[in-house]
């Protein structure tokens, strides 16, 4: 069966390997540039004691940065081009009776095919993730955004789980629909929908978020690469003050403050005593997931997607093994 799987899908494997190699070369070359850029920026800022303020620094090249963000979609490719046709193409061309009347049971046929494809998907997701994670090291240190949606999803172990899920989704769609193109469409839509629902609505609640209240004048930034879920200002009555859409001081619209605070909007740094007094009635708050939970969240996300993949593969197996050929 392994031989059949290889013989049938070697073109796909070779295409995948070539894409991975091209990505590796590109990210290795530009990644080394990013690293040396970061290194010299650190040397320069250490000399001038300005390392806490490097907001203007930009690392790497925009096109490659864009490509790195686009690896968000890479796991879906495994499901689309390897998963969806895996059984659908055979069912569609009517080749399955040939395979199913050799001296190999249907269960083994499916298990071996699926096993190799899952391995291929894991390698695909893993290699891309490893390259992206390494390439993004300096950026993570600079922007501290590794926990943010969009960055969390392209680094470390989550891409492996996404690729396994996409593969399982493709195989299940192919088994149910028995036609390649509809299966590919369902895989694409399903992948995007599930990923979006989990990232937007489920992931923020894997653990209950931490909320910190702070003095507006002193401000507060959680340590490390935390994930900020909400931020705002509470007024004297304890209710949130609307986000300023005009002149503001420390995030509070000037309408809520005495006239003595007005210069702050113009960029003044000195706070008059009356303005400071007025500001003590306001409190800032930040709701976030602390940086220390990063790996717990990666683990939970991976667990969810592997469980979904397992369910989909069970459905595919039930459909293929129970139904008539």
């Amino acid at each position, binding site marked *: 069966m392994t031989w059949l799987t290889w013989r049938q899908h070697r073109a796909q494997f070779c295409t995948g390997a070539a894409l991975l190699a091209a990505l590796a070369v590109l990210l290795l070359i530009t990644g080394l540039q990013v690293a040396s850029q970061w290194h010299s920026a650190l040397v320069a800022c250490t000399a001038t004691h300005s390392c806490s303020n490097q907001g203007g620094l930009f690392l790497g090249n925009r096109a490659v940065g864009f490509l790195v963000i686009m690896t968000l979609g890479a796991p879906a490719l495994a499901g689309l081009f390897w998963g969806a046709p895996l059984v659908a193409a055979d069912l569609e061309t*009517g*080749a*399955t*009776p040939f395979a199913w009347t050799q001296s190999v049971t*249907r269960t083994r046929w499916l298990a071996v095919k699926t096993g190799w494809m899952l391995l291929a998907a894991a390698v695909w997701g893993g290699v891309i993730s490893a390259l992206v994670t390494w390439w993004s090291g300096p950026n993570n240190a600079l922007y501290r955004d590794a926990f943010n949606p969009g960055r969390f999803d392209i680094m470390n172990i989550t891409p492996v789980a996404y690729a396994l899920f996409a593969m399982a989704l493709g195989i299940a769609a192919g088994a149910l629909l028995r036609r390649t193109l509809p299966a590919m469409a369902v895989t694409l839509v399903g992948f995007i929908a599930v990923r979006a629902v989990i990232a937007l609505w489920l992931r923020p609640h894997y653990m209950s978020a931490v909320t910190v209240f702070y003095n507006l004048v002193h401000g507060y930034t959680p340590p490390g690469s935390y994930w900020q879920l909400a931020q705002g200002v509470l007024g004297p009555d304890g209710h949130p003050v609307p986000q300023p859409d005009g002149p503001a001081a420390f995030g509070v619209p000037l309408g809520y403050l005495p006239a003595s605070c007005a210069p702050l909007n113009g960029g003044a740094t000195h706070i008059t005593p009356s303005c400071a007094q007025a500001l003590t009635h306001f409190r800032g708050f930040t709701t976030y997931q602390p940086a220390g939970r990063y790996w717990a969240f990666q683990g939970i996300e991976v667990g969810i997607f592997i469980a979904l993949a397992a369910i989909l593969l069970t459905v595919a197996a039930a459909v293929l*093994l129970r139904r*008539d050929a």
Partner: protein
Amino acid sequence: MTSVIQTRGLAKRYRRVTALSDCAITVPEGRISALIGPNGAGKTTLLRLLAGLARPTAGNMTVLGGTPRQDPAFLAEIGYLAQEIPLYRRLTAEDHIGIGAHLNRRWDGASARDRLRALNIPLDRAVGKLSGGQRAQVALALTLAKEPRLLLLDEPVAALDPLARRNFLAILATAVADSGLTVVLSSHLVADLERVADHLILLASSRVQLCGDIDALLAEHHVLVGPRKATTAIEKTRTIVQAVRTARQTTVLVRGNAAVLDPDWESADIGLEEMVLGYMGQDAAPGLARLTTVGDDQ
């Protein structure tokens, strides 16, 4: 003689359609059985059930001493060739021979290569690019390379030209003579199978109409030709399969060997095709023991 296939009350229903009902057949070992019936009679369904590719809705079957199942030992004994010629379009014949070698413990790749070379079929071209007939020959060679004990062939000669048909059937007859192989091959054309088959399964309207040794079946069927008159006297001792009335005479296909005493009726022997067509009805809307009236009645 042991029977390779035995079914009882076998039925297969798809959501609304009954593909096969109450099917009871027996095929002894070493026979070439012709599975004949009009399109849609249930031939493909029966073969797929026997090959273990579909599960029956009701009834039971014994194939090679067991129930068709997903088990390497059973699958190794079955050679099945579907009507659609299932092959991987993008792979070559040589690739398929390789696949067969990996998926079967018993595999005679050399004979498959020899057979295809003798037919001038390229081994290194994607089978999707071969002609329909060539593709059928490739699939056939692969099925035989498996060296099965039971060969189930669904319309195997449909895609072949007349010469290839004759060759193919000759190969089949030789294989049966050499190895005690049992074959069930379906067709809706009697002429294709008459030459090689010695056993008949006749399906019509998803039911088995006849099943047995061809010579024995022919011996108990006769055509009676007589004047235009009622057939009630005949019906007392024999089963009327089909009666055709014209203005002058009545032709009746009967089953049963009881003597006809009425001198008005002239009895004649019958050929396979006549017998089969009698059961199927010439209007492709077959049914058991139906009466056909031609011309004005009374």
